[in-house]
């Protein structure tokens, strides 16, 4: 790529900044460097007084090039952005600046700030408490704000066995949560019936939509963390998951009776 170099009238090329700029542009298009340099050097002394015709654009080019160099920018093989144009400039900027759509931004924000609801039922709740503890620290991911009220929570981690007496209560809590909301079924007992396949338990899929099932009895804290991170990935990659359509969960919002 040809670098346009304008020899400013009257300014000696050998001196300070211009010397630097020619050096930079010389490296960009190395083959022409020697000729112009020597040509500039020759006429430097001769046209000292004719400084009227200063090309503003060339000055700007030089200034940006020098800034690029000072920033430790690429000296070899890459074109400084100040002299790029068109498609190259766009690609160059896209590589460095994050552009996104609004949904992606919202999905990123939502996935990095789940507010789990404190919903421990049985043994899995102890391992869920372990992820809040220091070894598997859920605060690293931003999920340490466990909210007691379902109105303020958006992630329901069903940890433990759901008995038939508790199932309507769980459903009610899930309905009270505001959208968007997700549910993780932690452990074998709520995903399937687990160790206890009997009259007293209900698998959680029967009464509420669940996004991630984490197997284990109880799952290690690392396993639960893996499940939560899978959920985070789900939320990030596909923000409009269509979960209501997928699970046929239209109409799960809580409607208060008109008093």
């Amino acid at each position, binding site marked *: 790529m040809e670098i346009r170099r304008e020899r400013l009238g009257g300014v000696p090329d050998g001196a300070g900044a211009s010397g630097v700029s020619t050096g930079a542009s010389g490296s960009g298009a190395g083959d022409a460097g020697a000729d112009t340099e020597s040509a500039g050097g020759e006429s430097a002394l001769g046209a000292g007084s004719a400084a009227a015709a200063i090309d503003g654009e060339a000055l700007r080019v030089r200034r940006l090039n020098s800034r690029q160099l000072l920033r430790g920018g690429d000296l070899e093989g890459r074109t400084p952005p100040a002299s790029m144009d068109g498609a190259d400039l766009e690609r160059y900027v896209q590589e460095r600046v994050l552009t996104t759509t609004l949904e992606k931004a919202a999905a990123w924000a939502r996935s990095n700030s789940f507010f789990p609801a404190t919903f421990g039922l049985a043994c899995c709740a102890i391992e869920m408490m372990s992820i809040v503890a220091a070894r598997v620290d859920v605060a690293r991911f931003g999920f340490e704000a466990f909210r007691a009220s379902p109105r303020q929570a958006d992630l329901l981690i069903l940890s433990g066995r759901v008995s*038939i007496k508790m199932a309507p209560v769980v459903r009610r809590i899930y309905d009270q949560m505001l959208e968007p909301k997700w549910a993780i079924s932690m452990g074998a007992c709520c995903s399937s019936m687990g160790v206890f396949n*009997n*009259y*007293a338990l209900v*698998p959680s899929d*029967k009464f509420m939509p669940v996004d991630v099932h984490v197997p284990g009895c109880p799952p290690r804290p690392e396993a639960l963390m893996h499940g939560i991170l899978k959920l985070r990935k789900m939320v990030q990659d596909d923000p409009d998951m269509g979960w209501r359509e997928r*699970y*046929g*969960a239209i109409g799960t919002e809580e409607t208060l009776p008109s008093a």
Partner: protein
Amino acid sequence: MPDATGLELIAQELRETGHGVLDTLFFRDRASIVVDPADIRSALAHLRGRGYAFLASVHGVDYHPVEPRLGVLYELLDMTRVDRLTVKLRVASQAPEVESVTPDWPTANHQEREIYDMFGVVFRGHPDLRRILMPEDYEGHPQRRDFPIGGEPVIFTHNDLARNDPAAREGVRG
């Protein structure tokens, strides 16, 4: 535990004071007395006077198919001599009524409710006899031997009816 002789002496005392003692059993160094269900409250009061002042556990057993089918066991403990004694009674499932010992032994409150819930034994005189573990409107007494264990069937390939038919899948609606 009282040894075998001590057990027989206790049983003799109970008989002499008018309680119906149906059987004594000394098994694996543990002493148990089977009493007539009608005398349970006074028998326990008598044993309390003899030192067994702590009622550790009240639990039920289903001896199905042997009638009388429903058993209630009272585990007594004498803390000063570290002595344990089991008092058993059996009622038929057609008329499962026993007098409650809760007025004398407050610890039996929740435990008798659990026996009512799980076995269906009705405790006369209990201050608040209702289901404790199952929902209030549940029908049936789950711990009886002829109550089915329930649960979800494990879905294998041969009984997965919804494999190619999503409409048949029992899922979440609404």
